[in-house]
């Protein structure tokens, strides 16, 4: 099975994957990358008002084949009436 490498960034720490994981198809690697995003967010939030979590997937040949990100935006409201 082809091996994919998952580089991640939660805004605090970048991680370069030198181990990789095996998936039968690129679509499975895509789903795996996306599933990691809420896990990363859960461990890091609440943080700043703007946080970006991202995963970049490399294939065996070192080519980037996917980028996925999850963005949190929070901001104060100035007490608008409903």
């Amino acid at each position, binding site marked *: 099975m082809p091996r994919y490498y*998952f580089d*991640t960034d939660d805004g605090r*720490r970048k*991680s*370069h*994957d*030198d*181990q*990789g*994981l095996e998936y039968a198809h690129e679509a499975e690697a895509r789903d*795996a*990358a996306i*599933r*990691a995003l809420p*896990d*990363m967010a*859960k*461990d890091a939030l609440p943080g700043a008002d703007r946080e970006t979590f991202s*995963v970049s997937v490399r294939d065996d040949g070192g080519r980037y084949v996917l980028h996925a990100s999850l963005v949190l935006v929070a901001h104060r409201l100035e007490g608008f009436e409903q």
Partner: protein
Amino acid sequence: MTNALMEKLSSAEILTAEDRQLLEGLSTVAQRVPAGQDLIVEGEKPRHTRLFLSGYGCRYKGLASGERSITSLLLPGDFCDLNGFVLGYMDHTIATISECDVAEIPPEAMTALMADSPRVVRALWWATLVDDAIWREWLLNMGRRPADQQLAHLFCETLARLRASGTVRGQDFPFPLTQEQLADVIGVSTVHVNRILQRLRGEELVALEGRRVIIPDPPRLAEFCGFDGAYLHLSQDGFWGRRGFWEKEPVS
């Protein structure tokens, strides 16, 4: 062959020479089981009580979607279906992770053992209660600890358990779980496990060599994840769990 069990039970109760002899007699029929095999499947009725003598096993439950959760690791000295012996049928599946030596104890032998020694009954009860305590800790882990601490906690716990059964003496131990299996243990995605392992390695909290885990500085790893092994009840006053799980000899 039952050394791991006896070593473990010695934390619970002072077993007499006679009790030890009774326990020694248990594992006369041991089987070598290859890695990745189901030993008994959810819904089946156990015909024997099984005792792990070597290797890693697990309890797991699955969903119709194919996803599963590993609910405990079975290590040398662990009984795996004492509950089936009492409850009648399995409510989960037991499988090997690595190659394992597993003793099969017929129900008559279990009944006779329990009738012969109240101390052994108490020690088996102790082992069951400690399994419950480990589940409570895993629930806390899954519900409230971030995944990097969960994984660090699992490494601390596994070292403490392997040391308690005399399977391991130092600060490194065999760890045959794949990243997929670790994800099934801590309930996060495989890619997140991969990321956390990179981090724990990067900060030199753990080192991974082949299928071994090395903990270079156990107190540091314990502090990182808030590991307090008192819940393993390895000594009556809890001292061994809190401070000394990596020391050469348990402090009693």
